[in-house]
């Protein structure tokens, strides 16, 4: 499973608040950094699903 963040993400950092193991708000570059650019470890797949559900703007896609 891979995480993709859409351009319309609002950089609010809610994903980092709730799932810091997957996301970091990068204030300097005005973007969200992913802990895993490629496949995420299977034990984090549930967290990724939850993050997709909790995102304030539905900008987290899973592939």
């Amino acid at each position: 499973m891979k995480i993709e963040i859409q351009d319309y993400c609002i950089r609010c950092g809610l994903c980092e608040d709730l799932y810091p193991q997957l996301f970091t708000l990068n204030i300097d570059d005005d973007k969200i950094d992913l802990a895993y650019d490629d496949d995420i470890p299977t034990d984090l797949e549930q967290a990724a699903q939850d993050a997709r559900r909790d995102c304030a703007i539905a900008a987290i896609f899973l592939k």
Partner: protein
Amino acid sequence: MKSLTTDIAIMGSGLAGLTAAVKAAEAGAKVAVFEKRPFQGGGVSNTPMMTLVVRDEQEYKDKAFKVHMEYTNYSADAAMVRSWIDNSSHIPEFINRLGIDFLHVLKFDLDTLGRLPGYGGGFPNGMHIGDYYLLKPQGKGHGAAVICKRMADTVTKLGGDVRFSCPVTGLVREGDKVTGLVATEKDGDELHVNAKAVIIASGGFSDNPQMIKKYTGFTYTNNNCDDGGDVLFNTLPGARLTGDGQQAVWAIGGAQGSMGINGHNLVPGPGIIGNTPWVMKNQMRIIQEQPYLWVNQRGERFIDEDISNNHMAMGTCIASQPGRCAYIIVDEATVRRMEQVGLDHIYFIFPAEKLSDVRGQFEYLINVVGNKHAFMADTLEELCAQTGISLEGLEKTLKAYNDYCDAGYDAQFAKNPAFLRPVREPKFYALRCFCGGYQALGGIRVNGNCEVVDADYEPIKGLYAAGDCAAGNIWGDPPTGGIGVSTISFAHGFISARKAVEHAKAL
């Protein structure tokens, strides 16, 4: 140098700018929106959880107007207040047309307007002047984020141009009118925009420490208040609200409007809130809401603590204390009561009825997180040594205050006897609170038509402003516990679009 021609050019894609863009595009105008960040909604789109709407009934609108004017001691710009209130009733239909429902609507009777205590939809105490429309959120966000996205999509669908990472750097004025703006494109190229009308909707200035110092007297601080600063903001990190619109307007002769910071009592953040201010890591925000003993650095009480859940009043009081900070102090007996019996003020945003393991929460904050504003001590001497509160002052205060608690009457400030809880039994717990603002607001002076005016209050043709950047005078001059709120941003969006389109069509 590139150029672009449009009817209406808009600076900023927050609630105000995008509302204006949708309305102007629907009225048939060619619209271009310029946003400095790489996405719609900017610094605070994911914050409003509700919007206030004054019912479209004359007696409700009249009452709301009168309550508001009285609240500002008649220092508010009455024409702006009237036009905001008169336009607010169009907000629900506007939001519904974007395909968005409300979570809940709280309606209030005429009699209750201006009379309900407590935190009212972001408004100051007693300022319930309308109905609350709770915005339907996506996921764990707040609803305005989705509204901004839908509005940006709507503008594009209607043939408008929404440009991200494209900050506006200046306005073009020719004689008595504004004819366009200058922006910087993603690749660094300068873009000259010719427009029949320009709407400034670039928000507040909470990320500009120089403007905060110069225009409000506060000192901006980092999130731990360990750099000598004295005001905190609740905006999202990296919001980049640097007052660009205000500076651009002043540079071409627009008058300065009233500017301020809305009050809020806040304990500095580390270990307490996340990036998003409604993600709480513990129950400190709930403790700071309680009506127990509050003292200043001199150890003196300064207010009937019952207002501690009225954020603007409490923030304003705290800002008037030495060092611009204050402390809530509770003892072990009150902690036990908050854990076992319950709380006296229930904060609807963080609605706990009881607390759990308060000592553990303080220990974690102090020892693991290193928050410098949470304290716990076995003696008053130790508490004063940690906090810097005057021991002599605190002992004197406690002698009187504990007597009031025993007698059931607060001879100093007449606090509700139900909230008189003595401070006697170790351990003693304290939180240092500063004045916090949601955002710094105002700076552009507009009239009731959202037209930007010059030093003689004469409108500058073709130039309008909307939302937080122009909301200062709605709260008086200087603003009295003023606040930038979504209802003003929406209403200003409607008004500025209507006037800008009329102006463009007449050219």
